[in-house]
């Protein structure tokens, strides 16, 4: 079968350098994708596993949904349990709140680093790009297991996760996170060690990724400023510059353009109740961010191998397999916000929190391969200095945990942000046991199937128009688009 023939169908998979298993079915005509169907191929049923468990058991189970977003799952469950506790919950001590944010940021920034160096950039070392001027540099830096910068990033990441070894015992599957705060007090000398590990990562980022101080990257406030910065040095001075160089050459901003709307739950809840990165809803063409209405979130299972076809809010949703369902092609439901297809991720967080460069780039070119990756790198530069501030705010000797007794009857929602976007948990406690649990993960949104109205999900829309070269069976453009979302398939279905 040659892809250059009209009206061919390509079944692409397995994908790797995504978390979990993924299959994409493409209809290809005249060298471009006409339509796409995304299949999350694995189902484990965490929402039913949790039924009848003690509410705090969720904190053992939910991190194990995902080996790469494990802290994110714990944090979402923690906020859902706190919400269910209502007035029973004593205020979380500032130390506990900072410790939770430090653990979440440690995971999220590590995921951005892993995505860039191990998952996304290796595709630019492929032979198809051999004629390009930047190819030799990409190969030297990003070739899987061999590239110098990929190896250095893996080493930097290993050191970085010592933060979680100290703050949370281990990673992944860290159980020091709970509705009362953190179970792991930090003493004076540990705080200093944590600070020095953050500084080590700063050194790596400023030397290898950015070739610039973090603050210089975080404060880039327009596309003109970025252009000027890019051209102020040789095209491969630092890996961000090399990315900008190849993104410009390959016009990555025209690849994987999604439907354009994006939202965030807000990230890194502070002791004063505000988020470091406020959430909201971004509509294409709009200059303003509107508030998120979580009650407008629904999921429908029309095209999933799951029972039901009515859009339901996750507080009412359910998850029961129906492997023979007609018209179904994935285990993933279709989440929608007021019926609208949404994209989520670092780019949504940077839009909603008002980072001016990302806003300008998205206003001009939309949500695409280029802006998704750019937003992640900008976020690395913005959040790491905040971690230093949170560490400096820790007060050894003051409490880390306060009682948060859970009621025998109650319900709660926990809205947080994983590296790859908005993550929500909805639970209900009856007779002291979990009676209901629903999870909507970032890639549930980004890689959703068609909904009851027939609207394709964000990736399904972003793939339309992707070029398919003659004789390509696993199109490289499709791989760039898929990986630009940093998908986590084990979270998607859970």
């Amino acid at each position, binding site marked *: 079968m040659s892809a250059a023939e009209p009206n061919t169908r390509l079944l692409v998979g397995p994908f790797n350098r995504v978390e979990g298993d993924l299959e994409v079915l493409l209809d290809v005509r005249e060298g471009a994708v006409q339509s796409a169907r995304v299949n999350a191929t694995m189902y484990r049923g965490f929402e039913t596993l949790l039924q009848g468990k003690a509410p705090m058991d969720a904190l053992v189970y939910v991190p194990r949904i995902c080996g790469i977003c494990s802290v994110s799952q714990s944090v979402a469950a923690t906020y859902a349990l706190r919400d269910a506790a209502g007035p029973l919950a004593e205020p979380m001590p500032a130390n506990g709140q900072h410790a939770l944010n430090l653990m979440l940021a440690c995971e999220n920034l590590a995921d951005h680093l892993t995505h860039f160096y191990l998952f996304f950039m290796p595709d630019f070392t492929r032979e198809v790009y051999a004629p390009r001027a930047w190819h030799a540099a990409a190969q030297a830096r990003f070739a899987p297991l061999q590239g110098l910068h990929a190896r250095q990033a893996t080493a930097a990441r290993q050191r970085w996760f010592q933060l979680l070894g100290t703050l*949370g015992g281990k990673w992944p599957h860290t159980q020091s996170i709970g509705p009362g705060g953190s179970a792991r007090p930090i003493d004076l000398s540990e705080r200093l060690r944590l600070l020095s590990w953050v500084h080590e990562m700063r050194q790596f980022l400023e030397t290898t990724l950015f070739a610039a101080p973090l603050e210089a990257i975080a404060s880039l406030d327009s596309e003109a400023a970025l252009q000027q910065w890019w051209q102020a040095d040789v095209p491969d001075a630092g890996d961000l510059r090399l990315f900008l160089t190849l993104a410009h050459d390959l016009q990555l901003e025209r690849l994987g353009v999604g439907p354009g709307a994006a939202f965030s739950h807000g990230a890194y809840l502070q002791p004063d109740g505000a988020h470091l990165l406020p959430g909201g809803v971004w509509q294409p063409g709009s200059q303003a961010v509107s508030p998120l209405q979580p009650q407008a979130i629904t999921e429908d299972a029309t095209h999933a191998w799951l029972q039901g076809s009515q859009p339901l809010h996750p507080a009412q949703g359910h998850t029961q397999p129906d492997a023979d369902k007609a018209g179904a092609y994935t285990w993933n439901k279709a989440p929608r916000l007021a019926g609208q297809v949404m994209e989520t991720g670092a780019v949504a967080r940077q839009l909603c929190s008002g980072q001016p460069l990302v806003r300008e780039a998205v206003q001009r070119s939309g949500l695409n391969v280029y802006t998704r990756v750019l937003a992640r790198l900008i976020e690395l530069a913005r959040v790491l200095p905040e971690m230093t501030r949170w560490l400096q705010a820790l007060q050894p000797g003051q409490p880390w945990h306060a009682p948060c007794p859970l009621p025998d009857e109650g319900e709660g929602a926990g809205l947080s942000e994983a590296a790859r976007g908005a993550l929500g948990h909805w639970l209900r406690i009856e007779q002291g046991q979990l009676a209901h649990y629903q999870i909507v993960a970032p890639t549930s949104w980004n890689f959703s199937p068609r909904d009851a109205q027939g609207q394709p999900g964000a990736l399904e829309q972003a793939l339309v128009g992707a070029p398919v070269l003659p004789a390509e069976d696993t199109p490289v453009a499709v*791989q760039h688009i898929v990986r630009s979302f940093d998908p986590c398939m084990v979270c998607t279905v859970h």
Partner: protein
Amino acid sequence: MSPRRPGEPLNVLWLQSGGCGGCSMSLLCADTPDLNATLQGLGLNLLWHPSLSLASGQAVLTLLDDLVDGRQRLDLLCIEGAVLRGPHGSGRFHMLAGTGLPMMSWIERLAKVAKLVAAVGSCAAWGGVSAGGDNPTEACGLQYEDHHPGGWLGEHARWPGVQADAERWPVINIAGCPTHPGWVLDTLGALAQGALHPHDLDALGRPRFYADQLVHHGCSRNEYYEFKASAEAPSDQGCMMEHLGCKGTQAHADCNTRPWNGQGSCTRGGYACISCTEPGFQNPGHAFDRTPKVAGIPIGLPTDMPKAWFVALASLSKSATPRRVKHNATADHIVVPPAIRKTGLK
């Protein structure tokens, strides 16, 4: 297909099924400044790994076909995640992308041509968390279903190994949730170098170099344990066995002598050992964070300790608890420091 020559790297294929991918993420946290150099130095050649390899789609399917058909040698098949047999034995809860075939069929076909098979993590070993609750996906391990021998590949299946000897191998269970990167690297490296033998596995197929230890060994809370000075709430410094569900005195692993992510472990992180290297740990029959007791005595007593002795020792040590240990046990920092003494003879 030519046999493996002495000193030639071990051809390793790593596939993921019913799990979270966390054992791979844990492997990336291996304590080395250059993971690739470590893998090479141990004599490991990754044919394909889901997080680390370039090849996608058709290139992977070609590799799998080459291995199944014997055109390429497969020394070690590493499976991460449980085998999902449902619904109704069809395996459709995980179809390997791009193949239209259940992952369980791929595992079966590849296990037939592999010289050795390793279960990486507790899901692949026993079913693990993927087999939690009432196990809606019919998840099982490669050669166990919880603690029952059998699993997907069958109790009696054996593999020839990569050495020129007559030893026959069961599935090697590198159990843990996640598994420790050191357990994986030491196991794979020892296999590549011919330094591991079937008798180096315990009765559950786990490498004894870590499974003959207990999590309790080297626990930083050991003085609190000695006096049964117990933590009552998260962030307390005391021993978590009496109230908070800790199973470190029963769980086989070296987590407190081979720390995680630098200097960590579950107990150092302020939470109970949930015995994640043991079959069936996911359904303990009680809340994870509470110690089940009968007449005030924990049901799960330290391994190899007669109950009467434990009760006698515990009541004696509780009555002898120093004031310092008693007060610090329920605090989140040292409230009573140790007395300063001359430690010499004068």
